[in-house]
């Protein structure tokens, strides 16, 4: 029992040829399953977005009519500007779409002056990955740290204070935090006018290795990032708290204390490592929420990321762009789930031992 419970094991058991065959089979199975998941989701999205009321042409024409054009003029413009052929039956469109997808061709946007979907996504994705990714990592480690402190200081004033703050932050929707922050910063404290913080870059700033560029990037990312951190840190704190409390009750921690190990070692190698295990899987799963979370926040800050692109595509029924964004997100989620599984096996020796024993 004790050899399994001690978390640090660097030795790996000798792998037999038959075992390796199973592992390679396992990887193959894994890959096939991943492909199946991606295909299912893509197919579902393909038909669902085409079932939305209003075709891209209708919406485009409607918008022009609202701007004061006559309907004929609007139709003529739609015909010359939009690259859409929706006359073919849906199954044929689907087969064609899958064929293009297999060749890595995501198609051309209906709206954005005929730009390639892959180019559009490549332009927008880095901004979202940067803003959400950085915030997610910061809030994850901050949450683990604070959660452990709460668990160690249970039933003190610090516990009550931090737990209440965490529960409060967890309960308030992210976009509300965003609105309150904007009102506070630009209207109440008058630090920066709200208009200056819109977008992901100020006008006239060119990307490059200059202080102006990085300064401007940081200035624009600061508020969205703060919103993402505030919105997610509470849940990390609470999860880490309950996980640490459970771990503190485990026999191996009691044994470690009885053996007279230094407190710092117990905190890091015994409690911290084991208590944070379930959080790593959740961390990988939270990648799925990057897109969902960014949709509204990017709209509030008009941050030029993939969430804003999706909102625009949704509104104008730009099917190829929507399809592309969903595909990229699905692949990211499937990939991060696989990493979570591998990571979990790597971090938790008990699972590794079990898996190899079978």
């Amino acid at each position, binding site marked *: 029992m004790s050899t399994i419970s001690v978390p640090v094991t660097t030795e790996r058991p000798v792998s037999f040829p038959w075992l390796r065959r199973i592992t390679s089979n396992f990887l193959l199975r894994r890959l096939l399953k991943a492909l199946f998941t991606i295909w299912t989701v893509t197919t579902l*999205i393909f038909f669902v977005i085409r079932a*939305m009321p209003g075709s891209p042409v209708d919406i485009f024409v409607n918008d022009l009519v609202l701007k004061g054009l006559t309907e004929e003029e609007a139709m003529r413009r739609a015909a010359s500007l939009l690259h859409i052929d929706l006359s073919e039956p849906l199954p044929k469109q689907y087969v064609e779409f899958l064929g293009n997808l297999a060749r890595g061709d995501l198609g051309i946007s209906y709206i954005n002056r005929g730009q390639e979907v892959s180019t559009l996504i490549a332009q927008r994705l880095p901004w979202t990955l940067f803003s959400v990714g950085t915030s997610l990592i910061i809030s994850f480690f901050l949450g683990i740290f604070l959660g452990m402190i709460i668990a160690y200081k249970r039933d003190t004033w610090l516990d009550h204070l931090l737990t209440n703050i965490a529960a409060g932050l967890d309960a308030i929707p992210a*976009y509300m935090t965003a609105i309150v922050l904007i009102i506070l910063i630009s209207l109440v404290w008058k630090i920066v006018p709200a208009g200056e913080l819109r977008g992901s870059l100020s006008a006239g700033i060119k990307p490059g290795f200059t202080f102006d560029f990085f300064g401007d990037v940081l200035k624009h990312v600061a508020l969205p990032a703060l919103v993402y951190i505030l919105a997610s840190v509470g849940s990390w704190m609470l999860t880490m708290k*309950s996980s640490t409390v459970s771990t503190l009750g485990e026999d191996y921690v009691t044994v470690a204390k009885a053996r007279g190990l230094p407190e710092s070692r117990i905190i890091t190698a015994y409690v911290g490592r084991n208590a944070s295990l379930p959080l790593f899987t959740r961390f990988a799963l939270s990648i*799925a929420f990057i897109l969902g979370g960014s949709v509204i926040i990017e709209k509030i800050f008009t941050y030029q990321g993939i969430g804003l692109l999706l909102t625009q595509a949704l509104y104008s029924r730009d099917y190829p762009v929507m399809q592309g964004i*969903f595909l990229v997100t*699905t692949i990211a*989620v499937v990939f991060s789930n696989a990493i979570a599984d591998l990571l979990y096996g790597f971090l938790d020796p008990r699972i590794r031992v079990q898996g190899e024993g079978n």
Partner: protein
Amino acid sequence: MAAITAPFGSAISETGKTFKLIARNPASFIGLLVLVVITIVSLVGPMVIPPQNHANVAEILEGPSSRHILGTDFQGSDNLALLVYGGKDILEVAFVAGLLTTLLAVAVGSVSAFLGGIVDTVLMELVNIWLTIPQFPLLAILATMVKLSDIFLLAVLLALLGWAGLARQIRSQVLSLKQRDYVEAAMTLNLGTPHIIFREMLPNMMSFVAISLIFAATSAIYQQTSLVFLGLVPFSSANWGTTLSLAYTKGAIYQSDAAWTMLAPVGAIALFQLALVSLSRSLDEVFNPRLRTSV
């Protein structure tokens, strides 16, 4: 039939015990009180306060005063009155969506755990695929297809999207309960599946299910108000989400006069969410034996 009606007795005693534990924890007792007050005001208020359906040009965008405690909006409507009118929709969706999500998750999770084998594999594979789809964007797409004035339909939609994660948790709960001695004893005695599920397992999962219901409700509120806020779906009746969204599109974040119109619905939604979550926290102490025993 007896096997199905009998568990209500134990469910009631479980509820009584839960209420006692709620009353012991001041934070969640306040949460419960706030919930009751908001519910009563939202249901009774619209019968007492006159509707705000015509513009009042003389009183546009005023700050808080004795006449308008929370100020007025860009049409001169009283913000407090808008809040009173806007609660009913939100409460209804939260309750119905929370209930349906939990029911669906409990059904799928326990069937999967109980039957095992191929059914379990297929259902869990479905859950995995379902969890891969970005929920909110899909909701935004689906919401364009239903009439959002139909509150019940929206709640069904939210439940259909949100059941998967919870179903997986319920499944592992049932799997672990199946290992307990008393359940194994009931199985050996051949007491029948309904008896085992409703008499032996459900009472032991009750607080977990209750917490899940509360979280499903908070997530329903979040998604419903976000949906309106994004402006992708047509506005239905007045609710906190539409008030917030209208204020935002009228540029309320740029003018300090309009800040109250935004802060009022933000405050209402936040208060409601906080009340739900603080209520759930005492349920957590009921649920987690380690938290309970070391008190």
